């Protein structure tokens, strides 16, 4: 997390979640990257001239593009680090103007609807969780697959939740092309709305082939980190959906750019999240989900449903039906409590 204090005392907060198996970033090297490369630029930057005007892209361009892109063999991209700093900067600048990110990225809806996610679990536990989601009124569920009991699990869950609930699956790159082709053929009768990352990142030809072999739409997650990834995926006709996650994709500007690329290519969007994210990332994700024209699935805002305690006084997790209102307070719309951040911090670095 980044806490940024401006000279006039305004404070902004940002968050990034490093996932070594996605972008290559660890927490340690992300923090190091912020200290060495991002903070010096922000410290010396003059942001008073930035006008929070009509075009969010051009304003976000000014803010986000002051943060340098540093190539490295260690990582695919420094996106978690970048997201943390960019969000802190945006939060700070908007709060200075008493402006909500929602005023800046106008929401197209008053509520965002979130999906439930069932992670690796026994069939009994997975069915139990599915029934809880049904009790909570969730109409969209994602199920993690990649085990030997996938078919039985999906069948049992579909039986528990009924035919109307949208069900999609996420393989996190667990399959080879042949395995994916076989399992997806068997899953087709269970009305799967899409399969996320069926193959590991890397082989676009196989992904494109799989897309031809199955009627289940293909969503990419770990295969989609950079703009270049997006362009190659489109060129290869390798997917139907992009899973956009702020911390994976590099913050607000990069995520909106990817969404625009998707829209122009006719690719549908999921606005995903980082498991374990706090209200800061959830809030930023909420604004983007409410702003984008067309988002089929949204994940996140689990708050204290997943965390023992969130870091804001006011909970922003979703409620019944997976619904959560658009946030309207200044900045990202949340007020982190410093005492909670301190309580849960493993290391604090003052710059």
């Amino acid at each position: 997390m980044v806490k940024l204090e401006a000279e006039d005392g305004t404070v902004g907060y940002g968050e990034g979640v490093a996932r070594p198996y996605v972008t290559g970033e660890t927490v340690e090297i992300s923090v190091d990257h912020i200290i060495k490369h991002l903070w010096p630029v922000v410290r010396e930057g003059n942001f008073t001239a930035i006008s929070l005007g009509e075009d969010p892209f051009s304003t976000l361009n000014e803010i986000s593009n002051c943060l340098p892109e540093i190539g490295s063999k260690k990582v695919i991209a420094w996106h978690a680090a970048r997201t943390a700093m960019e969000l802190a900067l945006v939060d700070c600048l908007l709060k200075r103007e008493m402006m909500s990110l929602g005023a800046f990225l106008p929401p197209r809806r008053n509520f965002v609807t979130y999906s439930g996610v069932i992670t690796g679990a026994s069939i009994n536990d997975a069915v139990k969780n599915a029934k809880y989601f049904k009790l909570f009124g969730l109409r969209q569920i994602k199920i993690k697959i990649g085990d030997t009991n996938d078919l039985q699990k999906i069948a049992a869950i579909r039986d528990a939740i009924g035919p109307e609930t949208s069900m999609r699956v996420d393989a996190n790159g667990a399959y080879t092309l042949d395995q994916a082709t076989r399992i997806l053929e068997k899953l087709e009768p269970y009305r799967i709305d899409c399969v996320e990352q069926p193959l590991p990142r890397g082989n676009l030809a196989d992904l494109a082939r799989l897309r031809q072999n199955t009627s289940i739409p293909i969503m990419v997650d770990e295969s989609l980190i950079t703009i270049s990834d997006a362009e190659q995926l489109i060129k290869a006709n390798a997917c139907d959906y992009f899973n956009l996650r702020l911390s994976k994709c590099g913050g607000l500007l990069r995520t909106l750019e990817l969404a625009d690329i998707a829209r122009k290519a006719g690719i549908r969007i999921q606005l995903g999240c980082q498991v374990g994210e706090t209200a800061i990332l959830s809030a930023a994700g909420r604004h983007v989900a409410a702003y984008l024209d067309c988002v089929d699935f949204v994940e996140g805002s689990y708050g204290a449903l997943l965390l023992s305690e969130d870091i804001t006084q006011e909970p922003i997790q979703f409620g019944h039906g997976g619904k959560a209102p658009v946030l309207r307070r200044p900045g990202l719309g949340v007020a982190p409590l410093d005492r909670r951040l301190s309580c849960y911090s493993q290391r604090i670095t003052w710059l």
Partner: protein
Amino acid sequence: MDIRSYVEKTYQAQMEAFSNSPQFQALERGKIDKKEYFTFLANICITHMQSPKILGFLFSISPPDSTENVKHNFLEELGCEEAEESHPDLLKNTARGAGFDETTIERLEQKAQEEIRRMCNSPMMYGTIKEFGLHILLEVSSFEWMLSRLATRMGNFFANHGGCKKDDLLWFYFHAEKDSQHAEEALDTIVDYANYYNISDEVVSMITDVAFRENIFMKHYFSNHSGQNDQTAS
């Protein structure tokens, strides 16, 4: 499914995990810094100081067959029945007896109120008040059930290791005596509630599982929300 039995087994499992926990054992054996007793008592205060408000809510939604029992419990919380003091006052006097000053007690009362605020501000996962009400009824009843069995032990470890006199620990010994009856009545109320509001056994068990997905006693009594500066003790 025997719902009464399912709920009671859940309470039993929660209580055993709590009383067998290293934290509880350390308090009971005196193998811990004295300030931990005051943190524990502070958390008890935060958990229970606004109990009449919760009981008031449960009274308002109580099924007709259980209204008398719930009303009796509610009035007792307020100090309008046989007890001379309201339960929050009993708890405050216990805190005073343990050495908490008035500023600390006031702060704990505020934190207890913050918990009510947090509960009301939290998005409702359930679709109706009947399910939410059941969740709250299950939680409140679980504390009555646990306190009827453990309150004496807890009072004793304050007396033996926390530097408190038994006469000052009334809240614990009062609950040890009264909550046995309340705990049994509460289990009956849960069954009445489910029948009155047409909540199926399956849904009752699901709401029970959701309410107790974490250990509720550990969560409340060993939490960090009382803070370092919330108690002063002589």
